[in-house]
């Protein structure tokens, strides 16, 4: 019965997906026809496998429901739900939903998670049962600060084939000391093994030797293109609005696609549906206020959160910045409404903006906007579904007063997604679904900003594309000890017409100048025009994902995984740090999709009833078609990016260790990563030896050693202390190997690309949290957070540049450091 339904759904999704394609590739090359039979074959064999599984199961019943927090009604993600004395169990999904199927019988249902009181409920499974349960925080653990609250269920997580995934709750994110007291999700994940960034003041983060643009960052499923305010100093995520965060470092589930290095899945809170709740904070940089309340007689609820920096924050700081406005703000919104037991709708939205105005010079602002309308529908006891319609946009505008020009650029996408979770039996859970994303890129549009401006209006080619995805993934418990996950994703990418593509002599957008030994722009010979109905280029990729876990003992397991991912969107950036002005581009005639293979292996062990845990993982990853830039490439406002790039390859490998103490007055973790990340590019079609003579060279985000120690000590009910210590190998840079004199000036002779390193990066941060009253019946709860960032005032180099002193004519090395020692205080409240 059920498998027919799945098939129907998949067929429905497929035909939607297929239509979209047919429309766009009239009379154009159809290499999809090669791919389709292949994946149909996979699909059929998977279906047969599923059917056989369903047939074996007999006289089984299902218990399902939703798990939520008693105090605020928030559904809880990742809670372990299992039948005592068996290995039958599951964890709640993103919407708090669970479903367990077991043979007829008497059981004790256990709901357990660190930080919550364990609930045991006797059930008589002689028919299908619906059971929604509210859980309460464990008062006994209130003396502890719980880290990684979810999915650390006592029995299950070592069984899950998922490797390289970390879940953080909003309260965990908060424990790490933050710069200027601004709690920052992106900074906290950098304390995990395998996650680094390009130092202070650089946007984004790097996972397992991957680039910033290889991370899929989702806020309630909407793609967030720029994760930072103030050029990386603060993240766009307001912690008060966040429920939890899941970071997939490599073994990316089949339901995600489009990026090769990681998925950062950030979920906003749904809003308190029990009572009005206020949360807020006053810090040195910004203030925050969050309002949550029930709606429609507690059938729904909402959350509205705002955060803003103080007006004209820095104008007083520097004389040059008089009358300037440098600030950011963001707004998070989420509402939900439960139509009935089987249907729930959600609307969530984010709007964030950075403003950077300097009188007479520049007027600029940039930010993300996203919205997501979701419909959760439970078809039956075993089939859960979610339909999402998502909008997301990133844009920036720059008005240069001096040049009298106004420049805007944006990227917009609409995404329709339908995801299903089928809890087939106690041995099998299947996820499947489809997704279609329509992209519109506006790489640059220039207009005169004054009437007397000499600038002519100009628009770079607008780019359009459609990305389709179709996936099936099964979690299969093969034996009590061996669990597997098989996933398959088929992704397609259509670069749509409506513009002209430049043709080059010998089809070479870049040519190698043999005499001078440099790469330069090829010779344009004309243009090929494509109408809106035409497809410029089509890509299709099969992305298998496989995970296996084997339980060694009750407290230890080993896991292995293979993940293939394809990425069709690329961020063009050849600067040391990603900037807000970097422009995204699509795969197409001259830019090929990035294809990545990752192999990972891990060992997990728990000690002392889960008071301590150890995780060790290794990985090896290769990426084809990684864009590389020729020397001196100019990317901004360039209509013909293909003349500045070569298609290269990248590889990364490493070992990650994490030791955690999960319980007690003292909690924390130590993480260590030993890694290598390199890239190389041959000349290919352009000829010549390639960038850096075709040799492997260090990726800008290569870090040999990366150690983080995070500790929290709860002294009394009133005082909690925490500290971070971080040590990282300096990032690869290019130093001089000499100089020559030219026209009276000294010209630097630089080394091979990224052949040198900045000095090592290290610092220590501490913080203390003081909660003046702990009377449980008092509504107003306040806390003071005192922190010192970079306690010993280490002058970490964000960059080192090489220049001839303007006054003395002597060559210098100039170090730019961003944060020295920064003490701060902030006040948070809850009502």
């Amino acid at each position, binding site marked *: 019965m059920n498998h027919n339904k799945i098939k129907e759904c998949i067929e429905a999704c497929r035909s939607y997906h297929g239509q979209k394609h047919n429309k766009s590739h009239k009379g154009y090359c159809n290499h999809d026809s090669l791919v389709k039979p292949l994946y149909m074959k996979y699909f059929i064999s998977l279906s047969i496998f599923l059917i056989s599984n369903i047939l074996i199961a007999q006289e089984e019943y299902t218990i399902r429901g939703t798990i939520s927090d008693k105090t605020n009604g928030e559904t809880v993600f990742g809670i372990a739900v299992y039948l005592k004395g068996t290995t039958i169990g599951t964890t709640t999904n993103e919407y708090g939903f669970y479903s367990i199927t077991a043979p007829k019988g008497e059981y004790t249902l256990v709901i357990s998670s660190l930080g919550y009181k364990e609930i045991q409920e006797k059930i008589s499974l002689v028919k299908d049962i619906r059971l929604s349960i509210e859980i309460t925080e464990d008062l006994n653990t209130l003396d502890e600060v719980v880290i990684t609250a979810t999915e650390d269920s006592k029995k299950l997580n070592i069984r899950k084939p998922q490797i390289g995934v970390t879940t953080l709750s909003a309260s965990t994110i908060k424990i790490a000391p933050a710069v200027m007291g601004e709690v920052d999700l992106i900074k906290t994940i950098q304390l995990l093994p395998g996650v680094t960034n390009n130092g202070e*003041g650089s946007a984004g983060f790097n996972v397992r030797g991957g680039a910033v643009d290889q991370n899929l960052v989702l806020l309630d499923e909407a793609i967030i293109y720029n994760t930072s305010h103030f*050029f990386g*100093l603060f993240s766009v995520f307001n912690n008060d609005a966040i429920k939890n965060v899941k970071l997939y470092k490599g073994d990316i589930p089949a339901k995600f696609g489009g990026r090769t290095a990681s998925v950062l899945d950030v979920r906003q809170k749904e809003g308190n549906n029990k009572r009005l709740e206020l949360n807020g904070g006053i810090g040195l940089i910004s203030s925050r206020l969050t309002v949550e309340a029930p709606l429609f007689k507690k059938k729904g609820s909402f959350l509205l959160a705002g955060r803003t920096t103080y007006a004209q924050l820095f104008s007083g700081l*520097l004389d040059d*910045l008089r009358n300037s406005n440098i600030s950011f703000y963001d707004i998070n919104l989420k509402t939900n409404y439960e139509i009935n037991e089987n249907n729930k709708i959600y609307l969530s939205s984010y709007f964030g903006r950075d403003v*950077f105005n300097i009188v*007479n010079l520049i007027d600029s602002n940039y930010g993300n906007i996203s919205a997501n309308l979701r419909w959760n529908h439970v078809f039956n006891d075993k089939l859960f579904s979610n339909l999402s319609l998502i909008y997301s946009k990133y844009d920036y505008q720059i008005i*240069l007063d*001096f040049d009298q020009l106004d420049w805007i650029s944006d990227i917009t996408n609409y995404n329709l997604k339908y995801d299903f979770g089928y809890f087939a039996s106690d041995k099998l859970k299947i996820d499947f679904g489809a997704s279609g994303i329509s992209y519109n890129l506006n790489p640059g549009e*220039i207009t005169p900003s004054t009437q007397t401006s*000499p600038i*002519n209006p100009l628009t770079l080619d607008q780019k359009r594309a459609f990305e389709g995805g179709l996936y099936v993934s099964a979690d299969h418990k093969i034996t009590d000890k061996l669990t597997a996950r098989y996933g398959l994703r088929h992704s397609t990418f259509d670069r749509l017409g409506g513009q002209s593509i430049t043709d080059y002599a010998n089809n070479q957008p870049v040519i190698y100048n043999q005499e*001078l030994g*440099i790469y330069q722009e090829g010779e344009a010979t004309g243009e090929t025009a494509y109408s809106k109905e035409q497809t410029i280029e089509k890509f299709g990729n099969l992305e298998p994902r496989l995970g296996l876990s084997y339980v060694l003992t009750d407290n230890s397991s080993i896991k292995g995984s293979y993940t293939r991912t394809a990425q069709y969107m690329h961020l063009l950036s050849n600067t*040391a740090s990603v*900037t807000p*002005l970097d422009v995204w581009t699509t795969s197409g005639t001259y830019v090929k999709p990035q294809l990545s293979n990752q192999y990972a292996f891990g060992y997990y062990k728990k000690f002392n009833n889960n008071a301590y845990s150890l995780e060790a993982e290794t990985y090896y990853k290769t990426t084809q078609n990684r864009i590389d830039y020729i*020397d*001196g490439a*100019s990317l*901004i*406002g*360039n*209509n*013909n990016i293909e003349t500045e790039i070569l298609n290269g390859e990248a590889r990364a490998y490493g070992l990650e260790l994490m030791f955690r103490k999960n319980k007690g007055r003292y909690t924390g973790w130590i993480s260590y990563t030993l890694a290598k990340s390199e890239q190389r590019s041959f000349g290919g079609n352009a000829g010549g030896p390639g960038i850096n003579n075709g040799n492997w060279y260090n990726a800008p985000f290569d870090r040999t050693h990366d150690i983080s120690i995070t500790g929290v000590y709860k002294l009394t009910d009133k005082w909690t202390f925490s500290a971070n210590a971080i040590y990282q190998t300096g990032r690869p840079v290019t130093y*001089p*190997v*000499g*100089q*020559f*004199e*030219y*026209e*009276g*000036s000294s*010209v*630097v*002779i*630089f*080394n091979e690309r*990224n052949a040198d390193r900045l000095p090592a990066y290290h610092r220590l941060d501490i913080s203390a949290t003081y909660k003046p009253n702990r009377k449980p019946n008092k509504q107003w709860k306040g806390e003071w957070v005192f922190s010192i960032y970079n306690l010993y005032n280490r002058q970490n180099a*964000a*960059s080192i*540049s*090489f*220049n001839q*002193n*303007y*006054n*003395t*004519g002597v060559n*210098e*090395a*100039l*170090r*730019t*450091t*961003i*944060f*020295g020692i920064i003490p701060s205080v902030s006040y948070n409240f809850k009502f």
Partner: protein
Amino acid sequence: MKYIINIFKIENKIKVLSLIGLSAIIFSCTEPIDLTVPTESPRLVIEASLDWEKGTLGNNQTIKLSLSTPYYDTAPNPVSGASVIVENTTNGDVFIFNDQQDGSYTTTNFVPIINNTYNLEVIYNNETYTAQETLISVSEINRIEQSREGGSDEEELDLTIYFDDPANEVNFYYITFLEGEDLLPTREIMSDEFTNGNEMSLLYEEDEADAEDEILPGDEVDINIFGVSEQYYNFLNRLIEQGDNAGDPFATVPTRLRGNYINPENPENYAFGYFRVTESVNEVYTFE
């Protein structure tokens, strides 16, 4: 198709990225440090700038040869004993440059002809280095205007030069400003791809780096405009960018600056520097 790039190249002074980078710099501090850097074995450097200033004969020309030095060295490393010959490949004239034993090689009978192509051949240590360039013309300066409002600093004196760009041809310009006792000139490049056939204008204001040395009435600025090739324009673009990157967290990855010299026998042993042949205009402006 690349208009926007040109706007940014024209306004090299207004480096959007560095400006934006300011917000990071608000929290930041840039200071000189002692840092050991690697050293590569020396290479030949040929500074061959044959500039024909309008209104002169252009017969006297100098080419400088040196070896590259370790990054922090202050002493130059001149090269003597090389053979330096320039040939006008359009008409076959040959000009021999005489070794002055101090790294400079001179001639007094060079004949500059607009649009003729010249070939430079340097033989040093039994290796031959060659380069070719065409002599490119330049327009006169129409006028120079001074003001206080023009630049980013409203209190600072600035000046704007105006000159005509010839229509129906692609032109590239290299402009230098050397004010008072400044050690190094301010370098600018311009292309007419966006303003072909129009009157070109360029504003000069003292760099921030030099804030103490404010321009006062009576100060002189030495202005030079050169008509240059596209290849040299690209070379200068990277040269200027390299010098402007101090403290800019969004600077592009620095790369080695190669000129137009080739060593056909031994390509690995290339020379630094550039061989240019230009017409130039010089004017000294005194602030009022």
